[in-house]
């Protein structure tokens, strides 16, 4: 169980995250929604400790995440994987090496620095890639892949960490509709079948409603909505998004989605 207590993050005089308290039980798929600049990314980055809260605390079980340092901090990051909008892969390295980064906490330094992964680790990496239907790309340079393929590599990297939580920061914001569905299906599968808690920043309300068990709405760094997708009425959404509401609310069409039942070519989702 992840617990945030009045977490604040200030950049100068501006509060990007302004006193958020939140409890996420294990196994949930939580969608964090809100306008651009509402503090969604900052919130996720604080959970993984890529950035430190100005005040407040984050606990996971008995672990005080905000107090972690050195190896303990890295151990936490290994348990709490992160997926980024821009994938954050090393473009000039091959796909498998990128995925093996997920083992870098567990493998001894001497081996990981020289890419001396053992067979077990390689098998883990390859099977993660295979599960996301991109096993054949293992030897390719990461920057030769399409956006959707790169994001799946990033998900594979997160999976070989064998994490308890996956934080996804706008994972589909740079993707086309087809890849959006592939990636969201993969995250849902990971949540449902592997029991990994997923916290996912989303800009699109339609996607958030479709995939998430629970939605958390941020506006101006504050938590303004917390409930199941059904409770998120258009009126609430309009408050949440203000001027951007026209962009995210589209009652009759669902932009960014294929028709239900479309073949996604994602092996993992079909198991």
């Amino acid at each position, binding site marked *: 169980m992840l617990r945030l207590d009045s977490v604040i993050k200030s950049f100068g005089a501006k509060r990007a995250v302004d006193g958020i308290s939140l409890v996420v039980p294990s196994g949930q798929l939580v969608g964090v929604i809100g306008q651009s600049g509402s503090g969604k990314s900052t919130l996720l980055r604080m959970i*993984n400790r*890529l950035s430190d809260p100005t005040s407040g605390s984050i606990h996971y079980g008995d672990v005080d995440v905000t107090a972690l340092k050195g190896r303990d901090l*890295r*151990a*936490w*990051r*290994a*348990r709490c*994987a*992160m997926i*980024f909008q*821009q*994938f*954050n*892969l*090393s*473009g*000039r*390295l091959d796909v498998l*090496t*990128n995925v093996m*980064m*997920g083992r*870098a*906490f567990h493998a001894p*330094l001497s081996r*990981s*620095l020289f890419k001396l992964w053992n067979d077990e680790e390689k098998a883990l990496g390859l099977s993660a890639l295979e599960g996301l239907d991109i096993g054949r790309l293992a030897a390719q340079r990461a920057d030769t892949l399409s956006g959707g393929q790169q994001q799946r590599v*990033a998900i594979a*990297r*997160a999976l070989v*960490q064998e994490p308890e939580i996956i934080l996804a920061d706008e994972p589909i914001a740079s993707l086309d509709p087809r890849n959006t569905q592939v990636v969201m299906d993969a995250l849902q599968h990971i949540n449902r079948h592997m029991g990994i808690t997923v916290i996912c920043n989303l800009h699109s309300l339609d996607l958030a409603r479709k995939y998430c068990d629970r939605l958390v709405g941020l506006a101006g760094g504050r938590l303004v909505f917390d409930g199941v997708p059904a409770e998120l009425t258009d009126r609430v959404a309009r408050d949440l998004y203000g001027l951007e509401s026209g962009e995210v609310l589209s009652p009759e069409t669902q932009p960014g989605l294929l028709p239900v039942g479309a073949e996604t070519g994602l092996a993992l989702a079909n198991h």
Partner: protein
Amino acid sequence: MAVVLAAAALSCVAAEVSPSLFFAKIGNFTGYIGRLFHLDSGALVVTDPVEWYWGLARWARLLGETIVMAYVGTALGAIGAFFLAFLAAANVTPARWLSFTVRRFCEFCRTVPGLVFALMFVIAFGLGPMAGVLAIAIHSLGALGKLFAEVVENIDMKPVEGVQATGAPWHVSMRFGALPQVMSNFVSYVLLRFEVNVRESAVLGFVGAGGIGMDLFEAIRKFYYSDVSAILVMIVVTVAVIDIFTGKIRHRLIGLVEGR
């Protein structure tokens, strides 16, 4: 324009650079150059290459020593700079004070002239190439450390963050997040440095730190005119060949990076 000219005139006076002296004595310089290309017999050097290059075997060996000094010095400096760069670069440094300290250290290494280091090492380790190699290594460490750090500061941080977020230690995030982005630039700077160091190491012999410079300095001081020109021509040709060679490799590297 008038201001620039006035400033130039003023600084000439201040620095005691006198145009009249320049024109009065320029003949001495051209005369010296002229003497360089005549043998003791008074004939032009090209008329008797065997006499001109009487010391070819010795000079070639010393020139070889000079190149080896430059090579070893560059290599040692580059290895040091490679590790220091990641500590010095503001965007990836493990600690701000470390970055500050390493930067000041590199500054020190490259601002103290190589000749001064060479002199100190000659005093410490005696005459010979050892002193020259150390002087070149230290100067290269300072210069390359700064250049490398600047390359690292210009990288895209997203891959580094991606590796870091997995719980990987700092070394691993540098190795896999940063290094692939900077490697070709590093190699290019090292080759450039090698070119500079070949010239530098030729001069280091002046203070007895090994290589061809020792013989060149001796020839200049003892007015062995044709020897001076013979050695200078050898140095110029060697440096030009190395420049062309490393230049080709560097351009190929740049092509590799941009043509992907």
